[in-house]
């Protein structure tokens, strides 16, 4: 541990990574957020060791189905209408919800980065076409687009090549990624447009570097801050979208695979007098999304100092 601000007189070099870490650390809530996220992830990954029942295990007490039990010592969050342990469904559901969130964010950032870099670097008609496609995708309300896309694997067999089986977590990832990449593409294009004018890019070009080399060695590393920030914030947006799609009945199939989204969807019929069914997965979503947003905000501050901290 070094003591901040106590380096007077020394000219110790600080790497950009360490500088970013220093700025990140200033956001105490973000540091708390990282810890809480690590705990939530660990709990979901280690679900078999933390739960007594499986997520789809039908619990019987004295031969009778134990439906809608109140929270207590045996069932920490009670049981639901299918006689499953709510605590177990929340932990196992978190595996899918977190994985969907992270994978969706990575895929949509990848699509957005590729399109943004190509549009910004090559310019001209390539830029025109790619940005018009971006506008096009932005013109349709994204939840509506997601609902329509989610039905593609159910009605078109060729769509299953990309989407996998209908109502699978893979199809939900593909659906959300396809409606999420546009903002990333726009941001990255903007960054590339300004990088293009920089001397080091000109130098690379003068030295005879190919387009691919400039993109991979110079442009993408210099966009990495923006990519990391956008990916992080996409994770929380993807988790919220997954839950919204599940609420509307277009998400992951809840009969076989619990997710926070479809748990919430099923809970709505039992809110009164069983609010535990809603609060379990509901708090899981809210706390996770809140922590990711804190972290994303601190990352913005740490990796993109040009922007006003907010």
């Amino acid at each position: 541990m070094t003591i901040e601000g106590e380096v007077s007189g020394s000219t110790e070099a600080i790497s950009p990574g360490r500088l970013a870490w220093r700025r990140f650390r200033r956001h105490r809530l973000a540091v708390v957020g990282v810890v809480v996220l690590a705990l939530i992830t660990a709990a979901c990954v280690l679900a078999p060791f933390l739960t007594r029942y499986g997520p789809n295990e039908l619990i019987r007490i004295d031969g009778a189905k134990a439906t809608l039990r109140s929270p207590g010592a045996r069932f920490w969050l009670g049981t639901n209408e299918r006689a499953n342990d709510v605590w177990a469904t929340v932990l196992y559901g978190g595996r899918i919800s977190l994985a969907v969130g992270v994978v969706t964010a990575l895929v949509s950032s990848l699509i957005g980065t590729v399109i943004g870099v190509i549009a910004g670097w090559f310019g001209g008609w390539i830029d025109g076409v790619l940005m018009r496609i971006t506008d096009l995708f932005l013109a349709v309300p994204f939840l509506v687009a997601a609902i329509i896309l989610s039905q593609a694997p159910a009605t078109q067999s060729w769509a299953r090549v990309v989407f996998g089986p209908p109502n699978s977590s893979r199809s939900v990832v593909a659906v959300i990624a396809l409606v999420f990449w546009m903002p990333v593409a726009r941001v990255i294009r903007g960054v590339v447009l300004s990088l293009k004018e920089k001397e080091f890019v000109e130098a690379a070009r003068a030295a005879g570097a190919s387009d691919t080399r400039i993109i991979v060695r110079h442009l993408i590393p210099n966009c990495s801050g923006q990519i990391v920030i956008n990916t992080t914030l996409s994770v929380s947006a993807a988790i919220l979208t997954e839950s919204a799609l599940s609420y509307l009945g277009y998400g992951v199939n809840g009969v076989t695979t619990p997710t926070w989204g479809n748990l919430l969807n099923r809970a709505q019929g039992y809110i009164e007098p069983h609010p535990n069914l809603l609060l379990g997965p509901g708090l899981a979503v809210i706390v996770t999304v809140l922590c990711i947003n804190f972290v994303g905000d601190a990352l913005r501050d740490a990796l993109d100092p040009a922007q006003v901290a907010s």
Partner: protein
Amino acid sequence: MLRFVARRLAWGIPVLLAGSLLTFVALRMTTQPVTAARRLRIDPAAIARYRRELGLDRPLLEQYAGYVARFFRGDLGTSFTTQGPVWPELRTALVNSIVLALVAAVVYMAIGIALGVVSAVRQYSWFDHATTGLSFVGLSLPPFVFGLLCIVAVGTWYQNLTGASQPLLPFVGGVYSPQTQGFDLADRARHLALPVIVLSVQQIAVYSRYMRTGMLETLGSDYLRTARAKGLPERRVIFRHAFRNALIPVVTFAAIDIGALAGGLVVTEQIFGYQGMGKYFVDNYHNADYPALLPWVMIVILFVVAFNILADIAYAWLDPRIRVG
């Protein structure tokens, strides 16, 4: 300016056409009216007849061209489910969504902008920290979790607490109570309350953060220093100089935002059974009623594109630093 407007229109029309074509094809590929008809107990033969009469067995591109031509002539077609004209139901949904959007926009913009200004002026005060913290919470609440909690709160919890026989606010059944006759403003307002609250919680968070960032940027600018150096009172510096400039990006953002609201609030409207554009889409998509959905798509994209252009024009007009030719 005229050339600028013309250029934006030249951008808007292709986006409208291509966007609606794309959605048209996607809708046709993912809806199976015959399966839905069996579920709804509509005679599949009737559907087959409609398809022929409406030319829905023709090639997709030809159908699309015909449908766009009819749309702009004011003929919005016939629904599969109701077997009546699409327009009356669509008009109701559009009006309901516009009412909800406008009322909510007034509420959340006023509150959001005010919060943003105060937290920027008093940066790092307890008020600022509280606003920032609460807006993070607002952004992290899934609308339907919050909506469902609102329903329980105004219903059961309120009734248990006060012993009232009626819930504090109506939360199902949409836009007005079935027994009302004519137009009852108070009744409408009570039905609007919960959707407006659910929408506002998120949007206040968005706007207050946006406004705060904008204010901090202008408060740190050189012309603000000049204004202060001239000896202007602080109130005048903040409102005449900082606030008005910080508002410019918010206005453009708001224009785009309100255009998107014409597409309805899919989740919020579903929770409260509010018959707006979002619920219209979900219901008709569930019934695979694509003749009812195609005009919906056209209207929604029309709004989005129009308000995008409006936002650009507003931006160019409000900010003298931007000169367009």
